[in-house]
């Protein structure tokens, strides 16, 4: 995936002279994940710029560049290091179009390597999507496949609105068949894509949880479950249409993400699905999410991150037969 992102940046820089990259370590080092490898060498320091280490300054500077007609692409090194830039994101990046009644759109992409599962110490494993999703004015994307990493990043850079582009760290080194010379077309951002057909329930996920759901769906076959897996790809805008179509077909849904469940994206999805598809549901929409704890130390992160077993456990609960006592809460409490 890192290679696909690198290719997307290179192609964007080649295609459009107004595209500029900036961030900490994006130059000679090529980024700590090597996503910007070789770009300064090819395009020069003015197009791919090592900046001082200050996230608000990086994003704020990119705002000014975008105000003057450039298309800056920012790299913020790790999810938890993006927080100093949050004021710029919330107060200016998200609002500049609105503040100026459409006169100053901000074509700005903020790339954030995000999520856990790589054994990083604290501040290197946060899943911060809910903060961005809750901020009107931002697009929020999270690719799960190599093709999407390429196609969605190109689309993000071409967008006339700001995009927070969340790159799942643990998929950077995923091995997938991919031809960098002929990148496959992807669905438009904003549309969810069914990664696996299935009739008995749908697993709804994005980013790093998509491969976990595919694995869980495979494992669930042994228990007679035919699970669909839906990859949201874009959290804002949100594809109600495809999500609800999948839920109506299957009648059962589990939302999976690794960020904390409380007031997380899964809560929003469960609510939306319940509001729109209530009569099609055979069971409550369940959530499988990370615990409501600060991101744990690496030796414990496997207990926090939703894995195949926790997803299968939730799928088992989707049977939702009324308990003998008639107390629906009994089923909900089972793990």
């Amino acid at each position, binding site marked *: 995936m890192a290679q696909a992102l690198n290719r997307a940046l290179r192609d964007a820089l080649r295609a459009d002279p107004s595209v500029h990259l900036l961030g900490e370590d994006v130059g000679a080092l090529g980024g700590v994940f090597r996503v910007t490898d070789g770009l300064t060498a090819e395009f020069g320091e003015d197009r791919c710029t090592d900046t001082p280490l200050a996230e608000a300054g990086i994003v704020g500077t990119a705002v*000014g560049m975008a105000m003057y007609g450039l298309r800056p692409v920012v790299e913020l090194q790790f999810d938890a290091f993006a927080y100093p830039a949050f004021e710029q994101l919330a107060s200016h990046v998200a609002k500049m179009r609105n503040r100026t009644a459409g006169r100053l759109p901000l074509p700005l992409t903020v790339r954030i390597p995000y999520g856990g599962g790589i054994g990083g110490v604290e501040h290197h494993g946060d899943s911060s999507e809910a903060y961005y999703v809750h901020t009107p004015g931002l697009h929020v994307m999270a690719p799960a496949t190599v093709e999407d990493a390429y196609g969605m990043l190109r689309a993000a850079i071409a967008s006339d609105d700001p995009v927070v582009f969340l790159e799942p760290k643990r998929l950077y080194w995923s091995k997938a068949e991919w031809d960098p010379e002929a990148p496959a077309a992807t669905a438009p951002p904003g549309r969810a894509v069914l990664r696996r057909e299935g009739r008995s329930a749908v697993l709804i996920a994005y980013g790093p949880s998509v491969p976990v759901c595919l694995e869980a769906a495979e494992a669930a076959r042994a228990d007679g479950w035919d699970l669909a897996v839906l990859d949201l790809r874009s959290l804002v805008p949100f594809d109600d249409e495809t999500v609800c179509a999948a839920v109506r077909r299957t009648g059962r849904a589990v939302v999976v993400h690794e960020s904390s469940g409380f007031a997380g994206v899964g809560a929003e999805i469960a609510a939306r699905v319940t509001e729109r598809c209530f009569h099609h549901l055979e069971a409550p929409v369940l959530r499988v999410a990370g615990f409501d704890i600060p991101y744990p130390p690496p030796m414990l992160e496997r207990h926090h991150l939703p894995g195949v077993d926790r997803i299968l456990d939730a799928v088992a609960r989707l049977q939702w037969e009324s308990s003998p006592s008639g107390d629906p809460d009994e089923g909900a409490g089972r793990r």
Partner: protein
Amino acid sequence: MTLLDRAQGSAPWTPQSTGPRTEPGPLLPDAAPVRLLGEDAAGSAGTAAGLAPELLRTLHRRLVTGRRFNEQATALAKQGRLAVYPSSTGQEACQIAAAGVLQPTDWLFPSYRDSLAAVARGIDPVEVLTLLRGDAHSGWDPRRNRTAPLATPLATQAPHAVGLARAAALRGERLVALVLMGDGATSEGDFHEALNFAAVLRAPVVFLVQNNGYAISVPLAKQSAAPSLAHKAVGYGLPGRLVDGNDAAAVHQVVGEAVEYARDTGGPVLVEAITYRVDPHTNADDPRRYRSPEEAAAWRDHDPLVLMERHLRAAGLLDEEQRSAAAAEAEALAERMRAAFRTDPRPDPLDLFAHVYAEPTPQLREQEALLRAELAAEAESSGEEHR
């Protein structure tokens, strides 16, 4: 060799690390702020003599108009025509003189107290006050007058100026970005990051801090322990300059030099203008809780208009005819403001959804439909029709 020696540019200094750096000249400001309009009746032996009489008269006219703008806007706030007004009475020289030195191609990044600077850029006073009236976030097209929207969070517009100036430099254009801020803004992280970025990336930005003594109620002594706010430039490797912010001629000269330095060298400058906030922070503030009336009174003799008129009279540059012409011009502006604010604006509620994204999301379309239905129901019950 101490840091100060280096800052004074008195000794050569070779960085151990990368490539050549341009010596930015003396970094430390002079101990006393630059002052051109003398305090004495003689105009302090004509220190402003180098400035053209026509320039001084123009500055005077703009000071008179600026003062009247502040008075009228304050009155509009008291009448409820403006949701709030942060007055810049006593600080007019900083804004009008600084904005006045910009070329049409330059950019201005004002904060919420800098309405006069926006007016000085040629923006219609009503458009300038839209944010404070409460019908829209920004009344003007930032590209038309090359003026960013008034920024309310402190110092957050400073990195924008750096990015914009850098973008222009990358295109080979020699424009300068001028950022206006208050003393409180110098405590914010974005202020420091912007100074550092501008110095390291070589962006032609002039940071003008209007030190008016208070960040709402917190006095400068509790804001900064530095000898001056202009000293803050030193650590970032850019020149700091200190000017009497109530002396319009001095602000014109010092900011003018800073802008031309930025234009010529491509590098940034920090200017601190020492001034005083005569009025409360906004009309919602009660300054009696944190400062004495005597303190404000002491500044009256150092008022920007008083300084300018005293100087012009001593130099024989201001007669009664010119004075009344300036007053008439100011009164005409006030009357235009009163007329424009006599009626309440009726912003279209559906505009709430118009400029969130280039293409509204499906969710926003649904919400827009909901509001449209609510408006239709309201209209039906009141017998009106929306649009």
